[in-house]
């Protein structure tokens, strides 16, 4: 198999001091030009997984396992080499563009600096290319706007500037961590369209981290669903979204469906377990309408379903037939768990 692109194998992330494992045995593969969507709720470990790739974990968090990018092992890279890789071959954009932009730097200058830090070009040339990039990401009057400061842009425009900065060094992989969560829907649609276009145009790999199944579905070729630190289902986008085999995925998809005929929204009762409070068995079992004793006893293996499609579930046969009513019937009094 090709060594190109990103290969994550058995990645685990723990907070050593508190002895909490927040990501367990995650394996991912993003080939050149491929787009993978990583979906999960807050606390599922999806953002940490993305950050681990660039060595951007918060203090106290330690990653183990293997992260390979174009043949080199990222977890073994020295800080300086990692710095060289960041931005140049792998770039990242975040939910809040304002905190990632230097408020006292004109945006054109900020983008030009990224270009110059990875390539030996003159200031004039760098600025020309910065303007071209701004134009490419859909900022009107790019030449003029390149002299403006970040606070003079709207949230959506700032995210476009972040994307321009990320693209400045022509990375072969872009990590996008909830890039549209803070934006209004109309603006979000524009950003998603832009990401898709750029990916095809530049043959760039994309890891899109989001809590929104529909957002991920729009942009990615494949989807991985995370729950409580594990990937519980992965496969081609249309397979996972329309033929889900893991009860959590089924419930999540049902909960965003707006069926006017139904009187109530479909919901999964309960809430995700706190890190460290999980048992050996399936982590979704306490909320799952299909859970049987075998689910709780042993670690659940990845069960193959179709080409490139697997689920961490031993009852995939029955999962597909689950309906909103099944999830409602499993309603636990008290709603969610208190994180006391």
């Amino acid at each position: 198999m090709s060594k190109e692109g990103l290969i994550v194998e058995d990645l685990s992330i723990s907070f050593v001091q508190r002895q909490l494992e927040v990501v367990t045995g995650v394996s991912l593969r993003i080939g050149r030009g491929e787009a993978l969507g990583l979906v999960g709720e807050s606390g599922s470990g999806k953002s940490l997984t993305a950050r681990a790739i660039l060595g951007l974990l918060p203090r106290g968090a330690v990653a183990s396992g293997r992260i390979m990018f174009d043949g080199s092992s990222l977890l073994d890279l020295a800080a300086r080499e990692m710095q060289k890789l960041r931005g140049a071959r792998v770039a990242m954009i975040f939910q809040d563009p304002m905190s990632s932009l230097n408020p006292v730097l004109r945006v054109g200058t900020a983008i030009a600096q990224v270009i110059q830090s990875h390539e030996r070009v003159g200031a004039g040339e760098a600025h020309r290319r910065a303007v071209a990039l701004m134009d490419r990401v859909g900022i009107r009057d790019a030449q003029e706007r390149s002299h403006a400061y970040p606070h003079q842009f709207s949230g959506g425009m700032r995210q476009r500037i972040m994307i321009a900065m990320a693209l400045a060094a022509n990375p072969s992989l872009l990590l996008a961590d909830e890039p549209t969560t803070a934006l209004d829907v109309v603006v979000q649609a524009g950003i998603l369209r832009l990401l898709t276009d750029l990916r095809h145009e530049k043959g760039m790999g994309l890891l899109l981290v989001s809590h929104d199944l529909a957002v991920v579905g729009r942009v990615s070729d494949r989807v991985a669903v995370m729950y409580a630190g594990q990937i519980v289902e992965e496969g081609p986008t249309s397979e996972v979204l329309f033929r889900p085999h893991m009860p959590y995925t089924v419930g999540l998809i049902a909960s965003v469906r707006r069926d006017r005929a139904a009187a109530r929204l479909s919901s999964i009762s309960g809430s995700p377990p706190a890190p460290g409070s999980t048992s050996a068995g399936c982590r979704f079992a306490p909320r799952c309408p299909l859970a049987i004793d075998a689910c709780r006893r042993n670690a659940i293996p990845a069960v193959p379903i179709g080409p490139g499609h697997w689920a961490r579930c031993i009852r995939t046969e029955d999962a597909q037939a689950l309906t909103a009513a099944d999830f409602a019937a499993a309603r636990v009094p008290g709603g969610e768990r208190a994180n006391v």
Partner: protein
Amino acid sequence: MSEPLLVAENLTKTYQRSGGAFGFHRPANPALIDASLQINRAEIVGVVGESGSGKTTLARCIALLDRPDTGRVIFKGEDLTKLSGADLRARRRYIQTIFQDPYASLNPRMRIGDVLEEVIRYHRLATGPGIAARVKQLLDQVGLPLSAVSSYPAAFSGGQRQRICIARALAAEPEMLIADEPVSALDVSIQAQVVNLLLDLKEQLGLSVIFIGHDLQLVNFIAPRVIIMLKGRIVETIPENKSLLDAEHEYTRELLESVPRLESLRDGGKGTRS
């Protein structure tokens, strides 16, 4: 037809931006322009718009948390904007608001039991042992265990806090709830729980609800009648018996097409006509 519970007429609000040098006020754009709305007993009305569309300002003006510059808020036949002091305070409890951010909505230094008791005691809605019974009933209604009374807000997740906020609102025995993006800050699987809770309570208690959101289809699922806001103005009202697909205003259509929908992906299309 009976008289509507609340009528808001021609509300306009401009927030003064003070703090300019030497006390000069910079001219500010109005946050709300000539907005009118009415709601019947036990009705749910939806309000949809992007950030900055004026939907939160509308909510605050209706609840008199902000005083509208012009316009009237007539609640059960009485113009609330003409009231002040104790007269206004006495009527406030009938209109309760659920806010977007569950983490800013609870006093971090008050136990949940005290939060609920404070409301009941102040308005003398129960006395003696009736207070504890009422607290229990409220927690029950929002699906929280009785043990919550002795915990501080920090012990609860976002969804649970939103349930506590709903319980606090119900403690005042209101006739109307304004839910200002009550689920936008919550995880997807929790959102549905809270929405369903609001729908259940509306039916059990016969509450009128103004449900504000940015997701047109979610709001329309909850509320048969939806008001669309843009830049401080109400641009369209989608009546009860009409489908979103028949929306007339260009902006409404844009909103509708922008929300990514799973259903639309199946056909490989970009639209949201489902």
